[in-house]
């Protein structure tokens, strides 16, 4: 923005984009640092989920029958719907980044708001899924009951511990993602982004795609265990 640049030049005696932070030499360096930083952060998130997935892997190998039973009990319809919702939200997010890149703030805000709405849809569905578990006493703990296969109950309790651990952690990340996107949408609404600088949109896009990818792993691992067996 020419005005901003001029004002900034007046203040500092040198002219550069007001978005450039002072410890960086160029906007390019700053942008590369930000994206590298987000990628490194996503690696830490992979390791974070990885611990739970390790526990899942070991117990699935040990207790395949309980895993099949527990998985069958989950709603493939709701899980599938949520998967479609999230994948679509990644598309709308990418379109949001594109809009920011091309300097169209109204479109940016629109796509971000749609992404947020899809994210909230996911969370609402998740809420209903959890509520059903509560009603059936499938929440692990002292009140856990699994009618139908009481002999497998102890192992099913482990399955559900991991189900809630994994999807709960994922849902938490979704909440954080929705919050971040709300802030970024506000920034877009206030015309903070230019084709020269739209880094927050880009890196929150990276985060959002990551959360989507995690779900793409969780859905088959939790909802689709041994489903082929049950078809026949």
């Amino acid at each position: 923005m020419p005005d901003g640049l001029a004002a900034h030049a007046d203040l500092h005696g040198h002219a550069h984009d007001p978005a450039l932070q002072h410890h960086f030499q160029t906007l390019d360096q700053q942008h590369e640092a930000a994206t590298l930083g987000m990628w490194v952060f996503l690696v830490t998130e992979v390791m974070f989920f990885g611990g739970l997935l390790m526990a899942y892997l070991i117990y699935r190998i040990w207790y395949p029958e309980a895993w099949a039973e527990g998985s069958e009990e989950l709603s493939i319809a709701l899980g599938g719907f949520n998967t479609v919702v999230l994948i679509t939200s990644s598309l709308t997010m990418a379109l949001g980044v594109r809009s920011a890149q091309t300097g169209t703030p109204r479109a940016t805000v629109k796509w971000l708001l749609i992404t947020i709405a899809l994210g909230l849809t996911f969370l609402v569905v998740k809420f209903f899924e959890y509520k059903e578990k509560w009603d059936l006493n499938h929440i692990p703990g002292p009140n856990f009951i699994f009618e139908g296969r009481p002999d497998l109950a102890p192992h099913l309790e482990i399955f559900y511990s991991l189900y809630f651990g994994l999807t709960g952690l994922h849902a938490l990340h979704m909440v954080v993602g929705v919050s971040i996107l709300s802030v970024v949408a506000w920034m877009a609404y206030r015309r903070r982004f230019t084709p020269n600088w739209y880094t927050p949109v880009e890196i929150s896009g990276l985060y959002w795609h990551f959360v989507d990818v995690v779900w793409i792993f969780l859905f088959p691992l939790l909802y689709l265990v041994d489903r082929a067996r049950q078809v026949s």
Partner: protein
Amino acid sequence: MTTTVLPRVTYVNVKTTVASWLLTKDHKRIGILYLGLVAVAFLLGGIFAAAVRIELTTPQGDLLSADSYNRMFTAHGVMMVFFVLIPVVPGILGNFVMPLMIGAKDVAFPRLNLLSWYLLVIGFLFTIAALVSGGVDTGWTFYTPYSSLASNSNVVMTGLGIFIAGFSSILTGLNFMVTIHRMRAPGMTWFRLPLFVWALYATALVQILGTPIIAITLLMLVLERVLGFGIFDPRLGGDPVLFQHLFWFYSHPAVYIMILPPMGVISEVITCFSRKNVFGYSFVAFSSLAIAVFGFLVWAHHLFVAGISPYSAMVFSFLSFAVAIPSAVKTFNWTATLYQGAIWLQTPIWWAFGFLGLFLVGGLTGLFLASLGLDVHLHDTYFVVAHFHFIMVGGAIMGFFAGLHYWWPKMTGRMYNEFLSRFAAILVFVGFPLTFGPQFILGYLGMPRRYHVYPDEFQVLNVLSSAGASILAVGYTLIALYLLFSLWKGEKAGANPWKATGLEWQTESPPPPDNFAVTPIVTEGAYEYSKREIKVA
């Protein structure tokens, strides 16, 4: 006509309000904030250690009840591991010096850097709250099922405190990694970087890849306790040993977070005070990376007697021997650096020599534990306690003090009293082996760890150990005193009192807020002592 010379603007005097310190984005101020926090944690951890060692002077449990004793050694371990050893060098020296060393104005994400400090503070406060409201008695290792099903202490509060502190470490690692990749001054190629920077980079790798695992593991433990989840419950078919695998998958690489930065310090100090290029620069640099990578492959050497198959034990034993080799290579390289040097015996290199001797013994005693046939006898005895204290205190803490004494003039603009600093170093060098040497013998005799009372025949060795600990306490206290005193009365230091190479010495002491008046341009390697004229301070 009088001319008024304005006092030079440094990062210290640029603004002096409390808020300007607590809301700073300056990496140098953040380094000082870490110094304050870690010093408090070290003091607390030391007090807990004192309680343990005083209790252990007699075979009976006369000073503390069994429950209090168990809480005391747990508090010592938690405080020292998570709030001293992990953050001490990266948080204090790394933050202060690394951007200067690469010719940058700050780290890549200054606000994230401040957040890292606050996360450590919050984690610290959670942990203190847990300690004050009854303590935790599981040992810093939190093994299940004791921690998940049986302990009636503040496991959740402490677990959350460590969880939060872990994110401090992750964000620091992330920040340093991006800084080193993207913010080096023109001409500062990777192979012109000081070895301290290589060490911090390797450490960042471990912080980023490893710390999330302890975070999720502690979270799982918290869910077990609070919600009754059954992942580690043997009554449900859960595996308590799974906790050990997950715990050590981080906690073994964690010890490399603790030792790699001090090793980097040693490279700086030995080159400076031998006035010589390091011997085998690329070997030392790559050894740091090798240690970081191999460090992830050895975790189950903590589980040799925990029921893992003998064949997997063999694999982990082999890898544990392999990870010792890069450390050995570094030690030989540092020794060779002294050859035909011009060795100037100032306090920092005294600490470096202490490091060399004690880290050597500590590392070599790791071979005993990596040896399957010996580990069966030595596991969970005082031999292990001696081994890791030699490395952590004799190695990491001494390395930290070497760095603190080396960069103190840069950080504060003051010199400390050389006589007192050498005296304190001698106290520590005498006190340390006296404290932990007898513990090797106790370990082979069979005295187990975490014992509140013990058979009479172990008393003499325990008394020797406690006597050494009291000497250590005096030594450390003396260091704090003369360093604080130097801030008030110490001789003013110039830009380069040690006549060292390195960009951090090309700016004033203390540095201005933006580090360099003009961005430096680098044209040569890190330790070109023999090529150029040393700028006298």
